[in-house]
């Protein structure tokens, strides 16, 4: 960047940086609250007023059985739906990025539609389908719903990542006598894997956090967000903060790991 030309420019620069800093701080205010209150020893069933510091909540993060059950249920749903959606979505992404074919523009548009539909419409319309078919809503229907909104997400994310991919590499491998399948597993797949993993990680997070679509399709099933919403009628135990902090720590670790791994991969391919 060029050197600021005047004092006014320098002040404007500092002001802009400060503004951005405050914006970043704003993003973290509730996060700080969540982590701090995981060390609170609340009086009564609601962990919303600071009383005193304790490590007790962290000693037994799975102490609340119903909360833990809901959390496990959410992890199961996220795992299953992410696997399905990642496979389906990646296939779509490869088709869109790798090939040029009739109807691709229309299919591309169709793929974007679910992302531009409000969640409440996605959730309620799918629920009307299940109602119409007289299907009891529960674990299976929630997985179906999550895959539905994850597929588009994965497809578009992976497509963006594989856009710059050099498909002539495939041609080269095949010219050297590799079968198309072998070419895919040995050449293409390792190269697009980071993009797929990143999309899978994000769509896992989307599933874990989804409330609106799940609410309409869960029946008597209770996921982590549904539990928090329902439980708020009678309690807000510090275990919620502890589990939320755990999710936070794990995802930060995964992100850091992913970044480091990506950097290493880049170095390796550069040499």
């Amino acid at each position: 960047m060029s050197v600021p030309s005047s004092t006014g420019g320098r002040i404007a620069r500092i002001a802009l940086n400060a503004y951005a800093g405050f914006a970043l701080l704003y993003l973290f205010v509730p996060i700080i609250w969540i982590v701090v209150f995981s060390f609170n020893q609340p009086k009564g069933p609601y962990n919303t007023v600071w009383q005193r510091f304790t490590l007790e909540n962290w000693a037994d993060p799975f102490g609340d059985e119903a909360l833990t059950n809901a959390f496990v249920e959410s992890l199961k749903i996220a795992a299953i739906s992410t696997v399905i959606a990642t496979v389906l979505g990646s296939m779509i992404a490869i088709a869109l990025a790798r090939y040029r074919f009739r109807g691709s523009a229309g299919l591309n548009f169709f793929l974007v539609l679910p992302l531009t539909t409000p969640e409440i419409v996605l959730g309620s319309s799918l629920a009307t389908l299940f109602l119409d078919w007289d299907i009891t809503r529960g674990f299976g229907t929630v997985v179906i719903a999550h895959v539905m909104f994850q597929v588009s997400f994965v497809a578009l994310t992976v497509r963006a990542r594989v856009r710059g991919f050099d498909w002539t590499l495939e041609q080269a491998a095949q010219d050297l006598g590799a079968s198309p399948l072998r070419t895919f597993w040995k050449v293409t797949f390792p190269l697009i894997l980071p993009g797929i993993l990143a999309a899978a990680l994000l769509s896992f997070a989307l599933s874990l956090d989804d409330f609106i679509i799940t609410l309409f399709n869960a029946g008597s099933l209770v996921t982590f967000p549904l539990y928090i919403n329902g439980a708020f009628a009678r309690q807000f135990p510090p275990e919620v903060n502890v589990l939320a902090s755990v999710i936070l720590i794990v995802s930060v670790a995964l992100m850091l790991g992913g970044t480091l791994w990506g950097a290493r991969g880049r170095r390796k391919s550069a040499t």
Partner: protein
Amino acid sequence: MITADDASAARGGVKRPELIGLGALVGAGALLVAVGTRLLTGAFAIVAISLVFASILALVVVAVTGTPESRRRIAPYGLLKPGMLWLALFYLAPLFTLLRLSLSTLPSRFAVEAEFGPTLDNYITAFTDFRPQFERGFLYAAIATVLTITIGYPLAYVIAFRGGKYRILLLGLVVIPFFTSFLIRTIAWKSILADQGFVTDAIDTVRLTWLFDGLNIMQDGKLINTPAAVIFGLTYNFLPFMILPIYVSLEKIDERLVDAAKDLYSTSVSAFRKVVLPLSIPGVFAGTLLTFIPAAGDFINAEYLGTPNTTMIGNSIQDQFLVQNNVPLASSMSFVLMFIITVFVIIYSKFFGTEDLA
């Protein structure tokens, strides 16, 4: 984009497999939608499902017996098929079911099956009884979207142009808060901004309550359960959906171009206005859609941070669907919401349009 296929495509290639592929995909999708929405029932449904299987079979037959060229032509449709059929059955078909239900009535108050009219009664109710909720929903979402731009754009700008080697780290910081459940984050705000919480206390101590009251941020000394609190919550919850696309569009801008513009236009401000801003419009466009659309349908923020006078259309749909048990009415409201948003997206695309949302 140039792919290995272009050469053969230019030569005219093999058209037949391509037509089979596309036809099988679209046809199977349409059949699934028809069965899903019960347009086809009984024996017809069985025939339709068999046809879907047959279309998959056809793809496989071509894949096994076809020439390498026709195989390559058919491949994209094979790859697309499972995902697209999933969307046909669980995204498109439900929308048609929703449409049909919205034109139906409940024969009695506690009836399980709605009877198809077709009737527009539900739409009339939606527009008359729930007009304030529609208006509030779109108004709050619009204000929140503008706020996310004013907060998010400078942050994205600073990260993109001044982040240096810390760019990825800073971007990570933007994303990290959103790995905790948004319900918990909203409850956190409720607690932080509570009447006897430290923020209200602090404002009270420095005697600025009158100022916040005057700005309509506070009402009678309250920070939550006000319209401002709902908008504030929406802004917070959808902020990263604004920051990330803006960042992506800013990051693509060549810094040398900015420097050249500064030389040309002499001030940073006009360089920004003439070069950076126009080039970042696609990001703002994508961010606006990603913020406005979910915000317009949201009900969590209004539920936790609002009052009975700040309910949005999402609250009404949720209430009619899951509490009042009036699914036909809720369906019509969902449909109207989607319709208005679609119109908005079309108009908005005309002004700022880019062909690519992703």
